[in-house]
């Protein structure tokens, strides 16, 4: 009797582990149009209304708790921040929610007016309904899909914390009513970029776990890069390797330049313009658009 119980227990464990490893193997082995990917898209489609409902229903609770968290953090900061927190206390959670949403939408609407932003991109505004809970895979789900004209590889922009905004990621999976956006902080992300105005070009890569610090790599030593300058998507014109992103989308601002003697390239740290931690709305750019200004590339 005891042996039978032990055998049953071990068999159950083996079956579940084998199923998991089998799923992983097949998932990695097949293309994006494969069976498991299709099932995944179907599940996302089916769960989307529930996720959206839950996201909307719990938004006041989230905002209230986040507000309490902000108050806790502010206690260790200076008097100015304490005054701001005191001011925030007077506001109702509901009005804060509405204000925050309005600000994000306003930033998104104003983003194409940036002098470098590519024109004619036809942005579609979508609500964020779910996001990945781990730092290892940064992705979000939005409530618009192929039914709204969204396709894979379209760039996505988000509002910034202090107005403005910038590149947030790219659409990697689409179903009829939802889409998955892989953020630029995902470990798989790499965006070709240029530092303005001198045009030094490199690749923006994430630092896993720290969404406010990204690396602009492959900038040759000797190319002058100064802090506080803006980094934009460079886009490419090659027929073979056309960039996913049109030229001119703001990515972030240079915060630190680290030129080690032994390295061939400089390591340029940038802080993204988009507030990737707290996104309620994003915009998907459904057309490549036309670049506005030319950058001098030496």
């Amino acid at each position: 009797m005891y042996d039978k119980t032990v055998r049953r227990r071990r068999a159950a464990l083996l079956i579940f582990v084998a199923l998991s490893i089998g799923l992983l193997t097949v998932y990695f082995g097949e293309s994006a149009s494969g069976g498991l990917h299709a099932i995944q898209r179907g599940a996302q489609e089916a769960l989307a209304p529930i996720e959206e409902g839950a996201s909307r229903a719990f938004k006041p609770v989230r905002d209230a708790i986040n507000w309490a968290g902000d108050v806790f953090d502010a206690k260790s900061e200076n008097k100015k921040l304490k005054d701001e927190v005191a001011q925030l206390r007077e506001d109702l959670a509901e009005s804060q929610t509405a204000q925050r949403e309005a600000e994000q939408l306003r930033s998104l609407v104003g983003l194409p007016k940036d002098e470098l932003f590519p024109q004619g991109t036809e942005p579609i505004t979508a609500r964020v309904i779910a996001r990945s809970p781990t730092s290892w895979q940064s992705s979000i789900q939005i409530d618009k899909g192929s039914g709204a004209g969204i396709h894979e590889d379209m760039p996505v922009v988000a509002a910034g914390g202090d107005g403005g905004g910038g590149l947030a990621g790219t659409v990697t999976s689409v179903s009829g009513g939802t889409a998955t956006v892989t953020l630029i902080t995902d470990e798989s992300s790499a965006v070709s970029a240029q530092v303005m105005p001198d045009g030094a070009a490199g690749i923006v890569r994430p630092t896993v776990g720290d969404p406010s610090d990204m690396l602009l790599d492959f900038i040759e030593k000797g190319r002058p890069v100064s802090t506080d300058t803006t980094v934009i998507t460079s886009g490419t014109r090659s027929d073979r390797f056309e960039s996913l992103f049109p030229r001119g989308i703001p990515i972030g601002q240079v915060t630190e330049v680290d030129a080690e003697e032994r390295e061939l390239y400089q390591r340029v740290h940038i802080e993204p313009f988009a507030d990737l931690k707290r996104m309620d709305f994003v915009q998907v750019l459904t057309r490549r658009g036309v670049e506005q200004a030319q950058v001098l590339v030496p």
Partner: protein
Amino acid sequence: MIPGPSSVIRVALMILVAVVFQIACLVQIRVLGGTADITPLLVAAVALYAGSVPGAATGFFTGLLLDLALGTNLGASSLVLTAVGYGVGRYREQRDPSHGLTPIPVAAAATAAYVLAYAAVSFMLSIDAPVSLLVVREMLITVLLNALIAMPFFAITRRLLRPVLLVEPGPRARRDSTISSGPIGLRGLEV
């Protein structure tokens, strides 16, 4: 756990609610730079009250739903949560913990195992970018937050599972004290 459709439906609904609540709400509530994660808590709670096989099954299906809903690597979460569920279930079967505060260390250990194992699986599968030390801080905060919410979460899970459990979990019954009166031959014995 009593095998049958009632148990399956009950646990399936708990998994659905926990996963949707996690990815649509809880993940956006940041406390001290981290977030609580109730998915390993659910798996640990089911395993603690129902045993290793229900724990492993709950872990597998919770991970599967999580990966399906988020479009992440299918099977990665299932693999890790299956191991977490089985491990907690075996702990319960071997040690039969009865202390009232058991959920706290169990939740902390299960969450730590989950975040560490998931990080290891992610590294083995695809991570190619530099990793910030803030990841470690985020993991620690998740473990702490999960330990903090463990008592109410396990209590709710226990209440929901109670109708389908074979053995009612809870503190062991206290032994009767030895008798000191009655027939001389019975005095000093536990009756």
